[in-house]
């Protein structure tokens, strides 16, 4: 448990410190981290820390787009542009196919969720109908 906390905390620190830094500066920061860890005899954790930091960065930078089935690239492109515009520039789109959403799409980042799927629409209809009865 404690090791996990150490890893996640250092990973977060790394992400914060390396934000907007040049490649050289990033390298230096990682080296300093390695020294700090060596001093505490914890340098074996470095790979795991880096891996976790990568995961955080990736999460922060991506928009997951879920579609019910394959669509033509033009539609996907347009959808992607609109999402990047509203959910944050500089992010990358990662597409997935999941037919359980029936139709429409679901777009998700670390902080936001837009659920425009047919499944959600149908669920809402169901809930409202039950209330009316």
């Amino acid at each position, binding site marked *: 448990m404690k090791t996990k906390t150490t890893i996640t905390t250092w990973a977060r620190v790394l992400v914060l410190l390396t934000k907007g830094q040049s490649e050289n500066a990033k390298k230096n920061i990682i080296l300093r981290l390695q020294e700090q860890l060596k001093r505490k005899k914890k340098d074996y954790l470095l790979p795991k820390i880096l891996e976790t930091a990568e995961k955080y960065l990736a999460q922060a930078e991506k928009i997951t787009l879920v579609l019910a089935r394959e669509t033509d690239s033009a539609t996907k492109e347009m959808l992607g542009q609109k999402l990047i515009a509203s959910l944050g520039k500089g992010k990358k789109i990662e597409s997935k196919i999941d037919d359980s959403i029936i139709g429409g799409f679901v777009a998700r980042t670390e902080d936001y969720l837009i659920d425009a799927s047919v499944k959600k629409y149908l669920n809402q*209809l169901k809930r*409202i*109908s039950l209330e009316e009865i």
Partner: protein
Amino acid sequence: MDKIEQFKRQLEEKEIEPKMDEIGTVIESGDNVVKANGLRDVENFELVEFEGRQIFGLALNLEEYETGIIVLGKGNAIKEGDVVKRTKRTLSVPVGEGLIGRVVDPLGRPLDGKGKIESKISYPVERLAPSVIERAPVDKPLHTGILAIDALIPIGRGQRELILGDRGIGKTAIALDMILNQKEEKNRPVCVYVACGQKKSKLKRLVKALEEKGAMEYTIVVAAFADDPASFLYLAPYTGCAIGEYFRDNKKDAVIVYDDLTKQSWAWREISLVLRRPPGREAYPGDIFYLHSRLLERAAKLSKEKGGGSLTALPIVETQAGDISGYIPTNVISITDGQIFLDSALFYKGQRPSLDIGRSVSRVGSKAQVSGMKKIAGTLKLDLAQFQDLERFSEFTEELDPQTRKMLERGKRMRELLKQEDLAPLSFEKEIAVIFAGTKGYLDDLPLEKIRQFKIDLIEELKAPSLEILDNIRDKELVDSKTEGELEEVIKRVKKSYGA
């Protein structure tokens, strides 16, 4: 065809638009407490929803990188990676007249299968109590219909009176009788019964009793069952309080029963320990007093400027082996304006209700009694205390002077007179008539075993349509000289049938 048109139109009016939800992701979950990251702009005490699971949560710990959420439902299905959405609403419940006659859960959702709850307003579940300046002294009575209480430990509207005792000796019965008694009361208050940690079967029987006696016309039930998550038991009293406050704030009177606060304490202890807040005395968290104090302070009598409404609270706390020096009992005693203490020994000896008069008190006292009751029962509490002391003392004495003997006989009869069965509350005018017979000495020459029947017969006689005695007492709230004479007549008449 008509119905379908209606339906279609209603559906069209509803907007179903996808919107952008602010979310977080579950990283830890267990014991109905969840840690999520994200939810950056969530507010303290905001309601959040677990996507796709139809379960809500309460954001309680807003840490620097994570949010601590207690699950308002069964959390076993929630797993790492699940999405949690903001609702942008602080925890609040629907309130208003539409709640009357319904049974709801701590989130205000119906449990009785009678359809949607009609309500236009919501009240936040956590709310500040009325301040010093917004209050007025308690001055109107809340009649429980239980002779011993209304005469000796009178409760007023806006007071908090604790019901204390070991399990199974009649605490809930007192609350139930009180609710049933309100049916015929003038300025009938709305009753709210909060079942906290009860078995479903017990509540079912209670609601049935309320329905059969017509009490659901003015009662609301809030239920958190024994198998509900701790968060429900923690919230249920606050939900009930918010529901009662609506009436208090709108110039009406309301009474709320918390059955019981011991179970709420256990639930809060569980949640606090899972949130890793350090334990104190009996492993309760440091703020266990505050849990109850902020709840019970919301029961109050409001000043005229604020509408003059009131919320009376009857919290129930269970003692262990009659120990009123326990941590939770003393905490709540120091918050309420008095306590009704039920004693196991008296219960098993057959004295019902098993009130321990010496250890029960009402700090608001006679200020809240109708003048008729105050006149005849004024010194009754002290007299009975003296009698009990005398009874114990004279146990070992053979020779008793006539004065002492008279006191003992009178005391025994008064004690017998104050006994009462469950589910048989007496309206205050009947109470006054019965106590009148006792304190004026009319029962002194009746054999002790006949007192119980005498009480029943006297009340039957007084109910005769040709007599106006009860109506008189009810209207004037006292026994005037004319009524006194008539009452004496009836008492003598009933006594004759006993050969006295």
